[in-house]
């Protein structure tokens, strides 16, 4: 059922109070009446009114004085003053004191009806706006940016410093350390928070698609462009664009990106009209951009444009007790989602989580806990509930062998397991070529353990 708006009518003349009451009752409002300022204040303390109609001339405290008092109580109160004598000076004074409007008796019914409707519409929109902003803040709170380690405290301090500015930010850190969450936190703490944050995963898109994804395209710009489409830069107008895996973009897109950053203007693919957009750039990478600049894969000028303010996210293994804080957070999140009563971890599980290398960082920890909650049938997560890959590493015995070959075998096996037997990645990490790695696997008789 629709909520009834509540009005307070303050007038010393009984006949006016009753007339207005009857008039507004027919409109479906809830009405309280007061014959003087004192009664009005008493009613106002106990009730919440959407609008107050106030006679300016009353014995005792005048309507103007009451207006000031009511505004002190609630600066958002909507008050319409009524008077028998129109005077510009008192009208100006009333408006200066915060009245919504000012009307003279007798009032044209059409004017009164529209004035009240407009005032209430404005108030309802204002209330709705506040409510929406609150719920948006609830919905978009950055998830799991958790940790109390000194390194993370430094990250929080940098987030808070840079959020208040419009500076371009470059977030550095290994895969899974939470770079997108940091970007979100910066956006949500900035003045741009009510505008969109648009994320582009540059590494996931081939050059031709990335270009139209970033800048949009006109109808018929290329085969398959059946409709005009806005690009991510246009969509981010007013807000933030987050360019993830920036190190992977081609030199051609780098040139265009540089121009957009400098001018905040671009053209859609196949278009001739220049489009302006107001956005803030946050970029992220897990690569060493300076190395890419040295090897000619990344433009130096673009690097300097992006590297204005950088935030480095430490790998999880360097975050000390944060591992446990995060594990507890994920445990709570997944046990609630799966409606399971799992409250903690046993000692062994905690010890192993603290000692594990966590190559996949927070993302790996989250996946490990989610899986553990699925398989756990007790009220505590035990070592057995943690995924195989984790156990494999943490169960590893300390190296007892003395020969170099034995140690090499163990090390290669560990790297292969860490990379889920991805030969290219493992070879890269071991800093040997793929053929050498194959030869070593053959030599040591290593096998993928399922």
């Amino acid at each position, binding site marked *: 059922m629709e909520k009834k708006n509540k009005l307070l009518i303050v007038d010393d003349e009984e006949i*006016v109070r009753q007339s207005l009451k009857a*008039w507004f*009752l*027919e409109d479906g409002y809830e009405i309280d009446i007061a014959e003087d300022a004192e009664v009005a204040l008493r009613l106002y303390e106990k009730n919440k009114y959407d609008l107050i109609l106030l006679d300016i001339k009353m014995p005792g405290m005048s309507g103007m004085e009451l207006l000031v008092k009511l505004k002190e109580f609630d600066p958002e109160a909507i008050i319409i003053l009524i008077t028998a004598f129109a005077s510009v000076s008192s009208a100006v004074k009333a408006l200066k004191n915060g009245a919504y409007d000012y009307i003279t008796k*007798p009032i*044209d019914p059409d004017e*009164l*009806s529209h004035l009240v409707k407009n005032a209430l519409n404005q108030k309802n929109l204002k209330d709705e706006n506040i409510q929406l902003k609150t719920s948006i803040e609830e919905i978009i709170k950055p998830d799991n940016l958790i940790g109390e380690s000194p390194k993370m405290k430094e990250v929080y301090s940098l987030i808070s410093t840079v959020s208040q500015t419009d500076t371009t930010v470059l977030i550095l850190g290994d895969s899974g350390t939470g770079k997108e969450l940091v970007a979100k936190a910066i956006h949500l703490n900035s003045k741009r928070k009510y505008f969109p944050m648009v994320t582009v995963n540059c590494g996931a898109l081939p050059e031709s698609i990335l270009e139209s994804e970033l800048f949009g395209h006109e109808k018929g710009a290329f085969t398959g462009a059946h409709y005009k489409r806005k690009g991510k830069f246009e969509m981010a107008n007013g807000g933030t664009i987050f360019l993830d895996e920036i190190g992977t973009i081609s030199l051609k897109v780098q040139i265009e990106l540089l121009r957009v950053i400098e001018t905040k203007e671009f053209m859609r693919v196949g278009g001739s009209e220049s489009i302006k957009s107001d956005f803030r750039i946050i970029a992220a990478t897990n690569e060493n951009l300076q190395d890419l600049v040295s090897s000619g894969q990344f433009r130096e000028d673009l690097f300097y444009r992006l590297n204005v303010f950088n935030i480095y996210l430490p790998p999880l293994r360097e975050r000390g007790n944060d591992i446990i804080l995060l594990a507890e957070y994920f445990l709570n999140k997944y046990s609630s989602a799966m409606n399971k009563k799992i409250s903690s971890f046993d000692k062994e599980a905690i010890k192993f989580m603290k000692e594990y290398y966590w190559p996949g960082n927070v993302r790996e920890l989250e996946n490990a806990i989610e899986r553990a909650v699925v398989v756990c049938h007790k009220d505590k997560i035990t070592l057995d509930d943690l995924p195989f890959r984790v156990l494999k590493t943490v169960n590893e015995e300390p190296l007892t062998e003395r020969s170099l070959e034995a140690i090499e075998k163990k090390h290669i096996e560990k790297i292969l397991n860490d990379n889920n037997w991805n030969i290219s990645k493992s070879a890269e990490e071991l800093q040997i070529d793929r053929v050498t790695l194959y030869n070593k696997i053959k030599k040591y008789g290593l096998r993928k353990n399922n």
Partner: protein
Amino acid sequence: MTKVILAPINIDNLQLLDEIIPDLKNISKLDFVIEPLKIDISEAYSVERGQYHSTTILKLMIENISNQSSKVVGIVKNDLFIPVLTYVFGEAQLNGKCSLVSLFRLHEEFYSGKSDYELLKQRTIKEILHELGHNFGLIHCKDWECVMHSSSAIEEVDIKGYRYCKLCSQRIKETFEIS
């Protein structure tokens, strides 16, 4: 069927009311009869404003028809006001027995100087059904097609519909079990 009395107050020519009764019956499914009311409304007259205070006339009506069980809609030729407003088309007791409609500002001559009898009939039907709706406990409706839509200017009277919307009809039925 609930009976509604149309009570012309100090009006001699009843042709207009005679002519609109079939439409009123047809739209509202209520039984309308005309019973002229002779009361002295001079005490409702305001010399400064040159208008009649509608609440005072309503009070006089209630005093004169206290034994009636039907709803009574008073019809006057005079211009009506309530103290805080410049004019009103009518006034009703919300959830009560009596209401009042003024023909004064329903005449097209008042606005354009040209007479339009058909328009006067349409406006009168709407205003009678509107004030009667308040007697049945209805408040203003947001539906522009509904006769209970608020109309504080003549344009709004002309724009709104003749009938009670589904919801308002339902409310009347539920409260008074009329069909």
